[in-house]
């Protein structure tokens, strides 16, 4: 996995609560059997005026000029500023894959849906929770100033504004460690194979029916 230590990037404000995973990446693009290539269809229904199709060349599609990512001032963004309950809905990991593929490294919001939040960490994408008031301030600052950038320092767990204001955020120590070092979580768990095997033996003794062959 791609490591995340500190990142400075231009911020795009997506001023909308309860952005769901169907909105982040609509279902027709879930038919891909790959992990990459979803960026051009990120927020497809908000971004384009027509209906998107899988494997389509998106360069000639009509754009929704109102949508934040289509405004020239937000070209090259890598930090998404969002509202509460971001990423609600399905478990599709295609949502963080699409954000990552588009170029986002970090999403800042007052709250996230559980599964989406979890999925971000597996893909080197950092979800940052800041309180609603701070997020409001950042929205105002970002809209007021073209090219507004934020620095997200995972090591120190702070978001730093261009003026030098610092906002601290929480992150689980395990997830932080994995992100900072870009660790392979499966490899880490497999280091505990002996513990898992011991547990499994005792689990089977207690609940033998859980280990019966499935009917093929």
């Amino acid at each position, binding site marked *: 996995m791609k490591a995340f230590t500190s990142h400075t990037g231009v911020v795009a404000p997506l001023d909308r609560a309860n952005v769901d995973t169907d*909105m982040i990446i609509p279902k027709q693009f879930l038919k891909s059997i790959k992990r990459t290539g979803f960026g051009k269809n990120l927020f497809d229904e908000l971004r384009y005026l027509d209906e998107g199709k899988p494997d389509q060349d998106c360069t000639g599609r009509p754009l929704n000029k109102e949508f934040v990512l289509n405004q020239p001032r937000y070209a090259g963004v890598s930090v998404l500023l969002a509202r509460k309950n971001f990423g*609600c809905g399905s478990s599709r990991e295609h949502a963080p894959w699409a954000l990552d593929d588009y170029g986002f490294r970090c999403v800042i919001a007052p709250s996230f849906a559980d599964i989406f939040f979890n999925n971000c960490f597996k893909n080197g994408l950092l979800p940052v929770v800041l309180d609603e008031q701070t997020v409001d301030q950042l929205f105002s600052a970002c809209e007021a100033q073209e090219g507004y950038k934020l620095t997200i320092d995972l090591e120190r767990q702070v978001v730093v504004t261009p003026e030098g204001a610092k906002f601290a955020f929480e992150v689980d120590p*395990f997830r932080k460690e994995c992100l900072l070092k870009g660790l392979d*979580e499966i490899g880490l*768990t497999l280091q505990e194979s002996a513990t898992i095997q011991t*547990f499994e033996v005792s689990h089977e003794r207690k609940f033998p029916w859980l280990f019966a062959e499935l009917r093929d």
Partner: protein
Amino acid sequence: MVGRTLYDKLWDDHLVKSRDDGSALLYIDRQLLHEVTSPQAFEGLRLAGRKPWRINANLATPDHNVPTTVSERKEGIEGIVDPVSRIQVQTLDDNCDEFGIVQYAMKDIRQGIVHVVGPEQGATLPGMTVVCGDSHTATHGAFGALAHGIGTSEVEHVLATQCLVAKKMKNMRVRVEGELGRGVTAKDIVLAVIGKIGTAGGTGCAIEFTGSAIESLSMEGRMTICNMAIEAGARVGLVAVDRNTIDYVKGRPCAPTGSDWEAAVDYWLTLHTDVDAVFDYEVELAAEDIKPQVTWGTSPEMVAAVDRCVPDPEQEDDETKAEGIRRALTYMGLEAGQALTSIQLDRVFIGSCTNSRIEDLREAAAVVKGRKVAETIKQAMVVPGSGLVKKQAEEEGLDQIFIEAGLEWREPGCSMCLAMNADRLGEGEHCASTSNRNFEGRQGFGGRTHLVSPAMAAAAAVTGRFIDVRDLMEESA
């Protein structure tokens, strides 16, 4: 010792290791796989040269992409018209063959929506930990199983290690006491709960549904409720084990037998919350207050009783909410203050992992029996949750009731719940749907979804608009 909740007990029985940093390794008894969220996980295993930890813990079936018309189904995978869908279903088939995973493939009568198939086969059992790369995995909590919807990286992690890296959630209890009125169903309960606590109300929690109204529900009803826990933000929904649970599981193909059965039942009957256990959050609803529900907006929390009106954003104090309502009304093509019963419908969908089990189909059939689909309805379809649900419905003659009334009787799959196959809404069309999400574009580009119970969807099919199903029941009584 302080009493434990059902969630606490399930957690404790599967805890491999608590780490100092607050994370834990949780042992997974069953992983269910489908074609959409598994290909990248298998690819990951291959790239790393890893093997599944315990093949036998995994069960697969294709559901999201499969066509539901008889003509497109009869040739199996080769017959799937959409080449991208075909590749995905074929990939699941190839991966199951390569790794030796049991699959109920497209032509198998046991094929169906993964959350219908697991319980139906007894592959979901009380006291299990169940995962699946699908947020509606919460469904299996109806059996007193700890079931999590997970992402694809986690699917790969569970395949490789038989464990999930997890953090303990908070305990929430939703208690629904009293007796449900006639025509009011499990779906109405869960929509009312979501309306009350909101789509983020259960974030970070495992919700246990309790109370006499839940206890009196069938297993199908309990599955409907747990299924939509995720729509209240909770990854996990739970109902305690009781005799209903055990009667449902008994005799299922993968259920234990003989002395194993006896031992299992003894254990399963301990799977309930202790009387002195403490929940972090408590929510209460009176069953008598719940009326048939209809969603009017683009989030499951945008819901009201069928006799109410579409809300007015100008009456909403919270500006973010008001903006959400305005946006939803524009998308849905509705006016503030409009009666829900005045919404004209174009299509009706009865199916999905929320409501495609035999009881759901019986409930819908009872309403349409002897009636006809309204002329203004372009299409009304019934999509059973599995091949076996379909077979049973046909044995009971439900298919004939639907067909005579003018509904289409389809092959099993996820179908129009998320429109990954050919079943979808046209732009601007309103649909009465028994599925679980009314997000923008969910059932088709520009489609307008209204979530309802099977009985309410059936009533909408025959009247062409929303109507309190109880009015129809009185007519036929």
